[in-house]
């Protein structure tokens, strides 16, 4: 990329909380537009152009229409970055991947259910197109987003942790959930959030997805030892890992 790279933001099925994190950069947004030229960002601007180098995509793919859009974006962009869990791992949308789709549809739309174009599973964008980088999290961490942008502009690979959240939990001197009679999926979840949910007194829910090589068998055993039923363990994993676990099975 010579000169200022052009960036565009897109959203598929998601809550747009990740784009909000970018708006929430406050003054730093001005620094951001100094190093990349934002040519499309529907949430805050009217202008739009299909001439861009980096595409940031939020949200999951859930139907053919979105998949087509995604493919178009891939063709236009030289770098595609997934923004937030829905895009990077299917996110909360993939809870329903373990549910019966007919039931899912009917519960919400009754007899009009079939009017809906929706796949039976919500998918990470990686399921449809090649994705170059991921900014994980629900929502994304602003500092990590800055790190990724900064790295891409400088032409280096961003450093995204591939160790579990427990690492950050230790650095932050938290009391482990398991010592508080709670259940946590931090031991198999990718760090990078600075263990923010545990810092705030709760547990890690798994929003950044599994690390590359999680010991999930061990973790299922441990959760059961601590008192969850096998079904509850599955639900713990289904909250965010639904799409990922299936994708791993296919490998």
């Amino acid at each position, binding site marked *: 990329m010579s000169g200022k790279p052009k960036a565009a933001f897109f*959203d*598929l*099925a*998601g*809550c*747009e*909380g990740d784009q*909000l*994190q970018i*708006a*929430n950069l*406050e003054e730093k947004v*001005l620094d951001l*537009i100094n190093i990349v030229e*934002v040519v499309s*960002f*529907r*949430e*805050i*601007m*009217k*202008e*739009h152009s299909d001439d861009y180098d980096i595409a940031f995509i939020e949200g999951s793919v*859930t*139907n053919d*229409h*979105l998949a087509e859009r995604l493919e178009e974006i891939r063709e236009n962009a030289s770098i595609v970055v997934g923004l937030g869990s829905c895009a990077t791992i299917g*996110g*909360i*949308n993939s*809870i*329903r991947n373990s*549910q019966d789709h007919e*039931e*899912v*549809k009917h*519960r*919400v*739309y009754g007899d*009009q259910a079939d*009017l*809906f*174009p*929706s796949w039976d599973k*919500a998918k990470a964008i990686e399921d449809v197109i090649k994705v170059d980088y991921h900014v994980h999290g*629900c*929502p994304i961490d602003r500092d990590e987003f800055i790190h990724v942008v900064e790295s891409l502009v400088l032409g280096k690979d961003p450093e995204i942790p591939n160790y579990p959240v427990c690492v950050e939990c230790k650095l932050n001197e938290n*009391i482990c959930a398991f010592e*508080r*009679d*709670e259940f946590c999926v931090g031991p198999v979840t990718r760090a990078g959030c600075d263990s*923010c*949910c545990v*810092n*705030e*007194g*709760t547990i890690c*829910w798994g929003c950044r997805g599994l690390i590359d090589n999680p010991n999930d068998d061990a973790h299922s055993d441990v959760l059961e030892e601590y008192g969850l039923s096998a079904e509850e363990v599955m*639900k713990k994993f289904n*909250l965010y890992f639904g799409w990922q676990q299936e994708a791993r099975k296919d490998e």
Partner: protein
Amino acid sequence: MSKEVNVDVEYLTRVEGHGNIVVNAKDGKIEKCEWQVVEAPRFFESMVVGRSWKELHHITSRICGICSIGHSLTSLKATEEAMGIEISQQDEMLRKLALHGENMQSHILHVGYLALPDLAGVGSVIPLASSHPDELKTVIGLHRLANDMSKLLCGRTTHPQRLIPGGFSKLPTIEELETLKGRLADSVEDLKAVASFVKGLASRFPDFERETEFFSLGHDKEYPLYDGKLKSSDTGTALVEDYLSMTNEYIVPQSTAKYTKNNREAYMVGALARLNNNYDNLSPMAKEVAESFGLEPVCHNPYMNNVAQIVEVVHNVEDSIRLIDLVLDMGLEEQSPYHQPDIDVRAGRGIGAIEVPRGILFHDYTYDDDGICTEANAIIPTNQNHGNIQYDMESLVPQMLADKTEKEIELALEMLVRAYDPCISCSTHYVDVKFV
């Protein structure tokens, strides 16, 4: 006059989520005038079925990134009601503060970053950086304050962590609350500056009125955001339990979203509706600001929703200072930084109703004995406004056909939709989309 007007705005910008505006008019007659919503369905009401009471607020927070605090709180209220969980007076006040924080954040974002560019005649907030650097800096400062406030109370500004069934997992400290109070007090001048800046541009709001019904929470003593009964400007008050009979979801062939109605074909929710229904309970300074804009109940110009938002932010600030004082006077009760309230899990149904930035929000859950959700319903503010937007358009377009250009019509329509500040991504249910 023979004129053909074609307005087709696909993916309207500067709103959350995806919506299209389609207008075809020939020879002064409208052939088509539609507000379409084309968001892919996400099935939240199904996703939560089978999940534990401990997770519902976490999941439903993800319905909307913009008002995730509101969704979390509504969800918690529903769960707490279903299980008969009481929260302390202190926690209730802190929750109200959290809601003020989100309301400020969302309104400032909307007025400052999304609506202001229309008034200033530019395409986005980015050119404002050079055309109105001081004003923009003030807006950013207020936005940061609102976000810091949300973060302090909720852990995070989007998808809050500290809000849990029964209270808070972690509390702010006394020093933090004192600092916040100071910052809020200091922000008043900035708020006034933004208000007068907008006032200078207010003539650009189209002069358009259409009588409609306003629906919100209502309360005798306070400006209701966290608590209250249901209130309609047409039919008066009702109990929250009866929300279904006041919202009446139905499907219309020419649109995509489920509409709602009560007394008329459609009603409006949001800042203007709240203000129209509860003007007397606004804080003193908020009333002053409303007066300065000539905004008084009942105002039927939907574009004035932007002004109502500014008025509400002033109210949020003033009421927050009052709440912080109350909390500090009572003394902050100590709890563990990993607090888990004792909860007696039981079966039941609960309905939560809260005023979130875009209007009244309902979550309605049923739980079984193990605290597993068996049924859920959510009615989102933006959904409730779709019908009203459609009727506004149908009434606005003919008024403009005679002497306005296609561009002007397009802008007026875009501004109309944006005035409602729709958050389409959070809408939970829609019907099929048909493209023209």
